[in-house]
């Protein structure tokens, strides 16, 4: 049971943890908060990443649900009334593996390019406090070409996926042809939709550069987009592995 302590010196509240960057209270929290070293900027980056992590968890749950539906459907016996027997009607699809592998390479390359863009910004952000020293150059806007490259590669991937669907269709595998083909279109299609969202995010990131937004805003947008993009690449590898090996 606690008891009342008279109000003598209660300047430093007992907190269980200090969560800021260790700076004394009040410092850096004033009006500006725009310098990369300030708690406000770091807090915004952490906050953005936390938000992204949550979003990625929910997307993961979507694909976990699809995966469990996939596994259940594969093994599902169904009653064939004409024979009164229980049969399995899962016929594996002939996947356009070569095309998928090519697309995978494109996507992985795009992961590299966006990571380069992201690191460019990390470097710039680190140098920013000393940018006023003559002779120090931030190499402004170096990340733009990498962002641009990523967009191009992303669109290449999506085109490649579209070609893969055309290939399947030409061999008679449409969405409703059979359970296995349904899942191929479903998994790759939903992934493509999310990747398209990533492309839009990249365009937004690019626009923050072109519109000369402050450095740390750019850094946060590109950082979040980059991690999203990497997640999409990993997700794609998972989907491909599932389709190829869990047949």
């Amino acid at each position, binding site marked *: 049971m606690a008891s009342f302590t008279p*109000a003598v010196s209660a300047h430093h*509240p007992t907190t269980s943890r200090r969560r800021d960057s260790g700076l004394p209270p009040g410092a850096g*929290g004033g009006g500006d908060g725009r310098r990369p070293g300030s708690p406000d900027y770091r807090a915004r980056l952490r906050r953005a990443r936390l*938000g992204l992590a949550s979003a990625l968890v929910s997307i993961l749950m979507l694909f976990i*649900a699809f995966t469990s539906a996939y596994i259940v459907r594969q093994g599902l016996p169904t009653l064939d009334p004409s024979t009164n027997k229980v049969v399995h009607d899962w016929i594996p699809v002939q996947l356009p593996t070569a095309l998928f592998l090519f697309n995978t390479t494109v996507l992985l390359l795009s992961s590299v390019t966006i990571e380069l863009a992201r690191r460019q910004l990390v470097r710039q952000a680190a140098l920013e406090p000393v940018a006023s020293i003559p002779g120090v150059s931030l190499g402004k806007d170096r990340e733009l070409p990498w962002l641009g490259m990523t967009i191009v590669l992303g669109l290449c991937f999506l085109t490649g996926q579209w070609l893969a669907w055309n290939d399947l269709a030409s061999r008679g595998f449409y969405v409703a042809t059979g*359970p296995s083909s349904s899942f191929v279109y479903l998994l790759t299609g939903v992934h493509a939709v999310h990747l398209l969202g990533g492309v839009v995010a990249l365009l937004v990131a690019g626009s923050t550069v072109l519109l000369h937004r402050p450095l740390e805003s750019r850094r946060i947008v590109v950082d979040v987009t980059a991690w999203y993009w990497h997640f999409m690449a990993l997700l794609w590898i998972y989907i491909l592995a599932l389709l190829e090996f869990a047949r």
Partner: protein
Amino acid sequence: MVAQESHEHAAPQGFIRKYVFSLDHKVIGLQYYFLALTAVLVGMFLSLLMRIHVVWPNASLPLLGDIKPETYLSLVTMHGTIMVFFVLTTAPQGGFGNYILPIQIGAPDMAFPVLNMLSFWTTLVAYLVMLAAFFVVGGAPLHGWTGYAPLSALQSAGPGEGLGADLWITSIALFCVASLMGALNFITTTLDMRARGMSMMRMPLTCWSWFITAILGLLAFGVLLSAGILLLLDRNIGTSFFVPLGTVNGQLTGHKGGSPLLWQHLFWFFGHPEVYIAILPGMGVASQVLSTFSRKPIFGYKAMVYAMLSIGLLGFMVWGHHMFMSGMSPYSAFAFSVMTMAIGVPSAIKTFNWLGTLHKGRLRFQAPMLFAIGFVSLFVSGGLSGPFLAQPALDIPLHDTAFVPGHFHLIMGVAAIFGIFAATYYWFPKMFGRMMNERLARIHFFFTLIGTYCVFMPMHYLGLAGQPRRYSQLTELTYLHHLLPLNRFMTYAAVVTIAAQLVFLFNLFWSIFKGVKASDNPWEATTLEWTTATPPPHDNFAGHTPVVYNGPYEYSVPGAPRDYVMQSDPATVTAH
């Protein structure tokens, strides 16, 4: 020591930016709340029509005419869907959570205000799409809020299963996206924006409830979205995720090989956490209000937190208890049943702790407290019918009888609603700067408490007697005829209870404009929202971010000058 923090966005000017496309979590919270209010009026009206039809199936209603069996079923479907999604998953979390969470943790707003605004507008669009289902050819779907396939997957399976069903699924899919956006915001805000001194274990239990609810939502809504996508594909593209080889009225459906049970697994994997999403914020509010109005710390704060966490975790492991009769493996059924009984334990702990909070308190009976007390009573009643359904052997006679809606209405349809009422009466002064009328509140409370018990307790008796769910009339089975008088009693009780809500509505709107002006802390409560002006300024604390020194429920601290110690009061620092 106060820390000046720059607020993300300056106070907006102009009507549209201030009240329509606002980024302010307080405005967004109110938008959600009023959306839920219109939804609950629609939902209640649908239930009134349902109750009338069951006891007078041949009655012709003014303007609506005869209610055909398929119309009845579409009322059932839309009532359930609107209430579960647009009332119980909207008002407690989107409404009060949005408004109060940032203030209670000492933050100027939610982590992502633009996303917050987007999530409200997506919810609104989802609501409009849902309502549109009433007005299309064929009308609203008749497959129940649970949407079991193949009934929901075959356009030919019944009236309303055409465009109406597609709109229903689309609405739900939009709602999923909106909820996921909201969940992301709540989680980030709670983890990252607490004021100095506000450790997780000093957060009010309301904040814990919104946080855990958001985690549940984050994990569950993705699964519902996946089920909705698969269902749309089955319905419109000819895939067979859920539909096996079969016929409707002798005509082959064109599907084969799908599994109706797959829909049930996906749906209930979402559906069970969903009911905890519906009740957890109510539990948080009950704890908050009981403590405040008993002038006593909540009994067992840590146990309350762990209980909510366990409920959240276990909530993901029990979905099979909706499927005992489904054809699922009886061994799995038994496993799910053990987990289901286990989840009764943290719920019981919370109930004991609420009673423990009241015990040796000094109780004040203003409106919020009445509804919190009502919440406890209803939670006990609704919760205790659970162990019957949790045992598969007993589920054999009880599954899909009126016993089931009796159970979930008491706990979701009433207890959770009482949580919303308690929250409304409690935070109304802070939101609108005025008090609601106490006398009207008391009338509202007693009529609603007694009325809802009169409607839903008898459902248990009906279920025991074998009255099945979702029957549009009870005329065809002889063994149901003797249940008509009780059904009529329930209908009369429903009419009275619904009428009593008019008292609440009048009180709400009249008090917004004409209520007695409220002070900053009319309930003498301890949490941070009561330290700021009424209503709170745009950034919640007028630039003075609070620093927290105390736990959330420091009432009647021996030796303190008043019987409550604010969380941000440095003059009285307790050990909590």
